[in-house]
């Protein structure tokens, strides 16, 4: 049997940006990059649904989560302090394939950078990061020991290229591109990569159950309807019908 929700104390909490929170909890078990947990930071049934949060890092039996505070659930998590408990179900989903010896570009949009950190740590070969943000960068420093090049774009122009992160990438330099971020960004990237390099996407559709039961997060693929939570969240772009 798998564990249902477990309860863990927050052992670390910090703000990485005005609306970006990092928390850590103790955990022991197998956790793969790209997997996620369903999280409740409140007791009771309001809000009803748990929030799907990717694993940003897992080291020394501590899991880190990056949380963008934007709705009722994440605001409640933001109110918690050290020692307060959250409830977790997971790890869920299939995660990324860990590649080695390839030239890989990681392309992040906003909070989509979170799962790519743990992934970068696990991959060898030449790995470059392309990260786009609205205002200011966050988390990028922590990639540096594990990657080669860093390219940053912001809408504000405060750091890096002023404009879209997709402006920066030359797909022909890579064997594989891996992306996580807003759908508009990932679709633009798919256009750029099309016919030139393989692209893998980590999707973030709305979820209710997180375990493949409710069919709420379904995506259409060339081999039928698939759930993002259980069959994904990572898909080969060539398999998706977007």
């Amino acid at each position, binding site marked *: 049997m798998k564990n*249902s929700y477990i309860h863990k104390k927050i052992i670390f909490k910090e703000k990485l940006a005005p609306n970006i929170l990092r928390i850590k909890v103790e955990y022991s078990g197998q956790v793969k990059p790209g997997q996620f947990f369903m999280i409740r930071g409140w007791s009771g049934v309001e809000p009803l649904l748990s929030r799907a949060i990717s694993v940003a890092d897992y080291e020394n039996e501590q899991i880190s989560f990056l949380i963008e505070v934007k709705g009722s659930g994440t605001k409640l998590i933001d109110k918690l302090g050290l020692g307060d408990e959250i409830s977790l179900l997971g790890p869920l989903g299939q995660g990324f394939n860990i590649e080695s010896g390839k030239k890989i570009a990681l392309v992040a949009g906003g909070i989509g950078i979170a799962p790519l950190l743990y992934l970068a740590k696990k991959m060898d070969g030449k790995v470059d990061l392309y990260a786009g943000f609205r205002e200011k960068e966050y988390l990028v420093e922590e990639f540096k020991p594990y990657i080669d090049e860093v390219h940053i774009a912001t809408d504000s122009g405060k750091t890096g290229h002023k404009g879209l992160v997709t402006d920066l990438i030359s797909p022909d330099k890579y064997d594989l591109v891996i992306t996580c971020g807003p759908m508009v960004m990932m679709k633009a990237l798919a256009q750029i990569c099309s016919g030139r390099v393989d692209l893998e996407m980590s999707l973030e559709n709305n979820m*209710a159950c997180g375990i*493949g*039961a*409710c*069919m709420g997060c379904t995506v259409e693929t060339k081999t039928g309807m698939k759930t993002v939570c259980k069959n994904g969240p990572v898909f080969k772009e060539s398999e998706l019908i977007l």
Partner: protein
Amino acid sequence: MMEVAIGNIKFKNPIIAASGTFSNGREFDEYFDIGKLGGIATTGLTYKRRDGNKGIRLYETRSGMMNSIGLQNEGIEEFLQNDMKFLKEKSTNIIANLGGGELEEYILGAKLLNKSDVDMIELNISCPNVKKGGMSYGIKSKDAYEITRQIREVVDKSLIVKLSPNAENIVEMALACEDAGADAVSLVNTFNALAIDIGKRKAIFDNKTAGLSGPGIKPIALRMVYQVAQNIKIPTIGIGGIVSWMDVVEFIMAGATAVQVGSSNFIKPDICMDIITGLEEYMARENIKNLEEIKGII
């Protein structure tokens, strides 16, 4: 003793997992022994497979959620050859939830299910998320009577009709299904509802409206169950916003024989076990030997 009877089927307890919220059990069986449930209502099954609806399918509301899944399923034949083989091994009642569009599609599906190993059939005339048919049979009592009568003709197994809270008159609707030969009614399915993205100036869902479920609907569902149970002789199965054993006791006190647990399976995959244990402890505490003692007691 938590045992209850519906049609010619005995349930070891009155807790049934609601259709569309429990897939066909496999995912949940990884978290608890689903054989401990009174019953499992399958995903909405249709004669032919369906991919379901496009666009956003889920949206959280205050105290609830809206869905527009649109009966995504593999089709009855595939269900019988695959998931039903798995479910048959579990010591619980399997209730096939039958959906569809046109009447002919329902009848073809009913015939397949009637020949199968499922224990009961739940006729879903209340899905708000399919364009043709589906809920349209669940609005007017005379339409519900007609489809129930036709399905009854081809089904020997115990037959539940699942009612829509969007019915013009829920009591008349239940009476019509009883007259047409239903062995029980279950209610409610989801409320037809609307949510708008004010930034985009568009409805959240491609179909515009979608089905509302969860704790927010419980008081209305409870009222409907109360009104229906008072007026029909066949058993009523209560559904809507159940999250705890206390909600179950309320539905039974309102007249329900059994209940179905829906959206709260998403809050916690083994929530039905918490509910069963809580109900057991309550009965022991209150010295209730049989749920009949409190059924319809208000």
